[in-house]
């Protein structure tokens, strides 16, 4: 495959809340919950942020770094499970906000946490076939867990944008494949405010089976093994699942180091694996092999076998904020402010 990543950018909102603070409100050991999940804190969007604004910030950074004329974008897809509108595309607002309209195709993707990686695969197809010059794939979310639910300790906000193309590729995609089944581990019905999930059922038959099978298959197809990779990124609904699946597959802590961002910002859903990949690209050198395995409930995994190129050496990674800054910085807020920002307080009918 000739196509690959030409540029990238990530964005995470400024506010943070700790599991200890959430647990304090619900009368349970939040710090212990955070330890179990390996989540130190999670990001919280401002009242004026949503999937559209996060996607736009991430893409503006990607376009600035790549020096890409937005008018050369032929396709723009936004993967999310928290699109602000049920009907009216996120992608059209983002395309307009970066100046990519009107001659491009745009659509919203939804596949729980893997809608962003599905968008990357679609763009690779269009770019690889020569139908478009550049394709944009964004994974972005402002997801919520119901108050008091286990999800509330990890569900956060953030996103990353990737520009796919065939010129000046910084990371070439050698292989991609997916593993998909009908597995009802996590869902949100139309009109419902918060998602539902199968509790522990979200582990073995869902996340672990799909990620493991998908990772093993792509390594078989690529003729690689765990030690072939300098970096590995898994979908990270918490900080623990990716560590466990990585260990099972034979990856070391060092290989997983940069790809694991959830402990510092929480689970950004469609953004999670993509922000992990952005952090890897922030730190990677040329000619390093990267394995990315996303996961979306419902359920499916998308895997990518990438190799960075010499273009990465001159790529201006210093433009804008590196992912590390989002991991290190942030303003902690109490649960009361979090509840206000996330619309959890009933304000009466108006």
């Amino acid at each position: 495959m000739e196509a690959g990543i030409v540029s990238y950018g990530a964005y995470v909102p400024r506010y943070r809340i700790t599991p200890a603070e959430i647990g304090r409100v619900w009368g349970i050991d939040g710090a212990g919950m955070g330890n179990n999940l390996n989540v130190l804190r999670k990001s919280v969007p401002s009242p004026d942020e949503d999937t559209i604004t996060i996607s736009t910030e991430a893409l503006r950074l990607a376009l600035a770094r790549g020096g890409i004329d937005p008018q050369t974008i032929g396709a723009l897809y936004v993967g999310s499970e928290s699109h602000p509108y049920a009907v009216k595309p996120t992608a059209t607002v983002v395309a307009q906000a970066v100046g990519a309209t009107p001659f491009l195709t745009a659509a919203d993707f939804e596949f729980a946490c893997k809608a962003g990686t599905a968008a990357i695969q679609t763009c690779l197809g269009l770019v690889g076939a020569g139908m478009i010059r550049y394709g944009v794939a964004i994974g972005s979310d402002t997801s919520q867990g119901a108050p008091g639910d286990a999800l509330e300790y990890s569900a956060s906000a953030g996103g990353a944008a990737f520009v796919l193309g065939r010129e000046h590729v910084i990371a070439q995609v050698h292989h991609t494949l997916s593993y998909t089944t009908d597995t009802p581990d996590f869902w949100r019905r139309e009109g419902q405010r918060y998602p539902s999930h199968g509790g522990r059922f979200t582990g073995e038959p869902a996340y672990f089976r799909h990620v493991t099978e998908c990772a093993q298959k792509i390594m078989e197809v690529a003729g690689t093994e765990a030690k072939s990779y300098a970096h590995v990124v898994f979908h990270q609904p918490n900080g623990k699942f990716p560590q466990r699946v990585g260990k099972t597959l034979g990856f070391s802590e060092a290989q997983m180091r940069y790809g694991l961002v959830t402990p510092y910002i929480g689970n950004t859903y469609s953004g999670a694996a993509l922000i992990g990949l952005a952090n890897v690209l922030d730190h990677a050198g040329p000619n390093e092999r990267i394995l990315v395995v996303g996961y979306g409930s419902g359920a499916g995994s998308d895997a990518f076998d990438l190799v960075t190129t010499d273009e990465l050496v001159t790529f201006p990674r210093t433009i804008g904020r590196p992912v590390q800054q989002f991991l290190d910085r942030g303003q902690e807020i109490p649960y009361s402010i979090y509840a206000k920002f996330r619309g959890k307080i009933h304000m009466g009918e108006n």
Partner: protein
Amino acid sequence: MSIARFWRETPQRYNLGGSKCSDCSIVYFPPRSVCPNCSSHRRSIGRMVPFQLSGDGEVFSYTVVHEAAEGFDMQVPYVLALVKTVEGPLLTGQIVDVEADEVRIGLPVRAMFRKLREEGKAGVIHYGYKFAPREEDRAPAEPRGQRDASRAATPEGRRGPTTA
């Protein structure tokens, strides 16, 4: 505000699209079709070219709003500022991602894409520019090393974590 009016102003609100006089090079925002600076206004007609502001600037003056405008009650107290852009035009905009007492005249800011207001729960959502302090000009928060996460890992608790 009507849907049509907001939609017509999208190029300005989304992308800071202004205009520039090709005679005297002065930049205007919102865009003008005639240059009031040139001695012969008529000469500038048809010579104003579209110009996109970079979004970089600094706080020229500001006020802290405690009595919120409709739709801004969740953000009180918030800062409304006049921002002097590097290209020249003075813009009015909200300063976000900052505590009100951290704002000062001369603070370097950058335009951000944010939600401006919603037409109720079922109506259109309006987006546009606001400003935030440039991150490189902010004092860094307490750094947290990457090692913390591996230390935090413990055997699985009774309540199983969930995926999405």
